[in-house]
């Protein structure tokens, strides 16, 4: 009888749940500087960095339960992307102690006014953004003078928590 009662009490205490946030989107306007000394017909190296800090918000989520974040989409818009040969977006902690990870990349082949980047690995992505400021670097190559672009990176997050059994 005691076992049955203990089991019943354990059942009543059993609860599990997850909170999903489908879209956490950040738009970044990028105007790549053109390095001097590039001759005509030569590929132009692209590099742009920006620093973000989501650690305060993410730490609140991690206090609740296990957090997993993924890259929902990464889309860029511009007048044209005929000039873009390749691009990669990497993240690294501002202190430079962690190994950089690739968030998304583009290796050409798309045209028009918007392109979709291939999402990179999400392993350790949460650790990157939760530890403190993160430097996001856009680096690549252009065949001609780059146009201004807007990058729209959307992440998804899930917080899971179980209590009881």
């Amino acid at each position: 009888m005691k076992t049955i009662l203990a089991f019943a009490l354990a059942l009543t205490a059993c609860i599990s749940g997850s909170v999903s946030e489908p879209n956490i989107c950040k738009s970044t306007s990028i105007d790549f500087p053109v390095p001097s000394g590039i001759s005509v017909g030569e590929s132009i190296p692209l590099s742009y960095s920006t620093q973000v800090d989501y650690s305060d918000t993410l730490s609140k989520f991690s206090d609740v339960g296990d957090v997993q974040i993924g890259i929902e989409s990464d889309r860029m818009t511009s007048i044209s992307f005929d000039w873009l040969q390749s691009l990669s977006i990497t993240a690294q902690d501002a202190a430079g102690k962690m190994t950089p990870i690739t968030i998304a990349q583009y290796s050409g082949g798309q045209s028009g006014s918007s392109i979709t980047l291939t999402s990179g690995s999400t392993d350790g992505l949460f650790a990157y953004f939760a530890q403190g400021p993160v430097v996001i670097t856009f680096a690549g190559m252009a065949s001609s003078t780059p146009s201004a672009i807007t990058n729209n990176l959307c992440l998804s997050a899930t917080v899971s928590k179980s209590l009881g059994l």
Partner: protein
Amino acid sequence: MKRMIALIAAILFITSSALAEDQQSSAIDKVYCALPLPQSTTVKLQEPVALPQPTDRLHFLGFRFSLGVPTGAALELEASPMKWWHLSLGGSYAGLGPAIVGEVGIDPIDFSIGPTLNFMTGGSFPGHLPGVSQMPDVSYQFEELLVGFRLGKRNHAGFFLEGGPVWMQVQTNNFQSFLQSQSTNLNGILIGNPSAAISAFGAGRLGFYVMF
């Protein structure tokens, strides 16, 4: 001589009356013989008529009221096509938005106390706790399986106490507006409406029903 004549007259009168009766009887026999004879000639005596007894008829319609988690206060119109099962549909309020709830349940044993099994589902309109402005609008859907017992007369009226597992899906609305209203520094981040999926052995309710 007079006596003799009177006697003869009396005999003639009686004889003629008897003849007349015979003729009538013969005519009636002919009519009867023209009718088909009944198959059985057994005559059944009429049994005494039983007085009408109160019948345990089906009470088809009624209502059900309960207080529970996560449904809150629920009032449902109930239909019982058969005595051992019912369908109910109604509304509930659990502090957020008003909800529509429905259930199907069985009550298989006709004792004054009996086990019950119900499957209940429902969904709410978006809303937030009264007096609490610092929260986004929330709506939810749920499914729950309730096992318990009923105390009272089945298909008439009774109390019930039930509990079991529940599966809930919770959606938030206007989450971005809510964050902005809280002066949260979003650093240009756009945030969609988060949702939650919850499963728990936390559903329960206590209530009563009345069938008419």
